[in-house]
């Protein structure tokens, strides 16, 4: 058995300040297999991978690659030994050309000079293998994220890797592109490469993997052949509790005649959204479905005052008790929106959400403090109380409120951001992709929190690319397409099939529900 393995990681232990990130984890991999690595956020997937790529150093255990024990010191060192990684965020240089991104650091040389001709030719060949006909001499920034991701994979593949680690490579790809990636992965498997595949999309795990390994809380749960496990078993193993309770969420019902809380009539801004009308009632959860770039985020930004309205009106009803304005219902800017009881949790957690060097406490207190104004600083005791309250309420996994938010896992970071906006006691909460890139358990947790808030009378606008969760949680669903609202569905009409048809072909094709 042992001599068949391409990679053996035995009894790996890694200790971080305050937590045992990995506790005696075994991970074995055969040549020519696609092996999925699964677990919730904070389960230790990234830590295990970073241990293999030399970013973290193990405290105990052995790593054997091709029968030889190795001690990866740095990503560069790991790469030299044949371990390549493609990360979730495209880790390439936007200013370099596609060809150069593939070859930088290992350029073929000729007469003491870089052989640009060979680089460009080989890059073209590589991209052709990925069925992509693009001009490889253009800067990477010229291309879409999907193509950039493919370039990253091309680079990783071309270094003659024995092991290719794909860390959430599909999160920015559409279906066609995912299929393309899978084709490439199958080709590579046939060549005997071992591929470690990390993803949150369980369908993809079942579509491509040969085996899978599940981690939970830094411990190994088990390694399974793909035929020997069902999806429900898999999720149960990952979460460690019965999924029924989590999947049995009840979408908030709103009695007819419930007053509107926010009514937007024909609002728009040139270049963003032309014209959209919508209303949100008390305690209602409105789901926004549609593809990336369909205008979901742009609408949210209009409502929150990030983008100036060029026409149309937004009327807020029954809110503004704590607002400074008198009778003025217009939203001028985000600060104004905040004082009027709106809250907006933006899409890009890393860029617009967390302030990674500040503690959890400071991150939570931020929005409340901003609303109070900086002339009325919150006392340390108030901040502590606030932070402790939400850490307990949302189940944020941390030793204390002073830990830097950047050191938390994605799901926990998201909970902190959610806490920041919940703390402002909003009447309307806009959540843009709050569950992106976090695991099943944390997703369910966040969905449960949203529904609890709705029960307390908060209105929520929920934007997500995952139809499942939109359908599961929303009272009504607004479908966006090409920067227009093309349909508004409720009750029985909210089916996956219907929404997909509308997204793909427009509302008319689906029977004109708009």
């Amino acid at each position, binding site marked *: 058995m042992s001599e068949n393995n391409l990679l053996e990681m035995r009894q790996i232990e890694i200790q971080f300040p305050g937590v045992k990130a990995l506790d005696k984890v075994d991970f074995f991999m055969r040549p020519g297999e696609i092996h999925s690595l699964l677990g919730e956020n904070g389960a230790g997937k990234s830590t295990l991978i970073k241990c293999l790529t030399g970013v973290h150093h193990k405290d105990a255990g052995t790593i054997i690659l091709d029968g030889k024990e190795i001690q990866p010191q740095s990503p560069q060192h790991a790469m030299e030994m044949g371990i390549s990684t493609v990360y979730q965020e495209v880790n390439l240089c936007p*200013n370099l050309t596609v060809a150069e991104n593939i070859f930088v*650091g290992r350029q073929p040389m000729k007469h003491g000079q*870089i052989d640009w001709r060979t680089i460009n030719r080989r890059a073209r060949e590589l991209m052709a293998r990925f069925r992509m006909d693009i001009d490889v001499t253009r800067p990477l920034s*010229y291309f879409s994220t999907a193509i950039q991701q493919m370039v990253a994979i091309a680079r990783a593949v071309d270094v003659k890797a024995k092991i290719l680690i794909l860390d959430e490579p599909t999160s920015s790809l559409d279906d066609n592109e995912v299929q393309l990636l899978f084709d490439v992965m199958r080709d590579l498997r046939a060549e005997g490469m071992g591929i470690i595949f990390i993803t949150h999309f369980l369908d993809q795990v079942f579509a491509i993997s040969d085996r899978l390994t599940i981690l939970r809380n830094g411990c190994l749960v088990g390694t399974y052949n793909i035929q020997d496990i069902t999806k429900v078993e898999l999720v149960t193993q990952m979460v460690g509790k019965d999924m029924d309770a989590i999947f049995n969420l009840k979408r908030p019902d709103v009695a007819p005649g419930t007053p509107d809380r926010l009514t937007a009539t024909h609002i728009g801004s040139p270049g963003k959204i032309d014209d959209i009308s919508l209303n949100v009632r008390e305690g209602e959860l409105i789901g926004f479905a549609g593809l990336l770039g369909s205008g979901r985020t742009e609408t949210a930004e209009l409502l929150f005052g990030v983008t100036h309205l060029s026409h149309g009106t937004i009327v807020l009803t029954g809110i503004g008790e704590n607002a400074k304005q008198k009778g003025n219902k217009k939203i001028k800017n985000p600060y104004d929106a905040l004082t009027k009881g709106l809250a907006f949790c933006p899409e890009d957690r890393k860029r617009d959400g967390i302030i990674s060097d500040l503690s959890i406490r400071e991150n939570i207190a931020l929005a409340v403090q901003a609303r109070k104004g900086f002339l009325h600083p919150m006392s340390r005791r108030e901040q502590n109380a606030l932070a402790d309250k939400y850490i307990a309420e949302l189940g944020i996994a941390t030793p204390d409120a002073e830990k830097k938010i950047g050191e938390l896992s994605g799901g926990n970071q998201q909970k902190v951001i959610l806490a920041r906006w919940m703390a402002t006691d909003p009447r309307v909460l806009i959540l843009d992709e709050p569950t992106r890139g976090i695991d099943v358990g944390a997703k369910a947790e966040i969905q449960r929190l949203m529904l609890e808030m709705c029960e307390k009378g908060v209105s929520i606008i929920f934007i997500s690319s995952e139809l499942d969760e939109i359908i599961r949680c929303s009272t009504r669903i607004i479908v966006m397409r090409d920067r227009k609202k093309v349909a508004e569905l409720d009750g029985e009409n909210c089916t996956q099939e219907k929404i997909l048809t509308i997204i793909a072909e427009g509302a008319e094709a689906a029977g004109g529900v708009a």
Partner: protein
Amino acid sequence: MENNTNSRWQRLVKKLTNPKYIMVYATVGILLLIYLFGSIAYGNLASDPKSNKGFNTVRTITTLFVDNAYLGISAVGMTFVLITGGIDLSVAAVASLTGMFIAYGTTELGINPWICIAFSLFVGVGLGLLMGWVIHYLNVPPFITTLTGMFLARGVCSLISAKSITISNDVIDALAGWKVYLYHLKDGEWVKIKPTAYINFNIILFLVVLLVGIYLLQRTKFGRNVYAIGGNEQSAKLMGLPVGKTKVLVYGFNGLCSVLAGIAFTLYVKSGWNLSLQGGELDVITCAVIGGTLLTGGVGYILGTFFGVVLKALIPSLITFQGTLNSWWGKIATGLLLLLFIFIQKVVVSSSDANRKKNSQTAEKRIT
């Protein structure tokens, strides 16, 4: 297909229309415009022959290089630093220090000038490497680190002498005085160009540094790593590039360029003065920026910087031709030029963003 001239032309056109060269084209375009303006106002294209003051002569160009070679040498090194996303404020002080070493060493102490130059190189490159090391390994912002380097070098200048020292040394005199007159073929005979134009040691030094700079940036792994670091330092690290080593070497190379610029400047003015070249680092940065180098890093070409130097040098030259304007107008014109280029950069960057958005949208539309 490789030998097909048609496809070769197509490839050349494709290569030249690559959006990454836009900034360099902008520099060349504005340079040509200003040269055209000069030609109309004070050159061969003047409507009134009396106002032709000989702007379109070779001499105008060679004089421009004689007067600005030191600036160009330093700008080559600065381009490297700016491409990594850093900045170096110590260059003018180090150049000035080089002048002090040479002037004080040869004239006051009677040391062989070659030893003075070697010592300057040792100090300048050493300081550069040290600053690079501090920036990368101690993670101190380049601005602060090189500001410290600037004060340090400037302080040592004044420590050596608070007075200007005029150099009297045979070797220095010979180097400074060495020149090659330019000839052209006239009626089957080689005769000196009129008005006389010459190339001196500084121009040759500038051209050598320029070629070395282009070779390093475009043809070596080191140069490409410089671009990668400027594009995204974190990515460069994850791609396994030697980020730390490259950054240290970049500041070392810039130190080398500063010393060479100092040598050129010393030969140009034949003296050392502790307060010379004050604010010169900003002139150097200006040249790189109007040559298309982005201060945010990742983008820039030595050739662009070359045109930037010429463009910046052309303005005082034009004011000299004009004859009555106060030379401070040169500063104002340079300021306006800088503003214009920052504006162009802004437009180029935002239009490339828009381009990518467009591309990604078409990609997203392909759904099943």
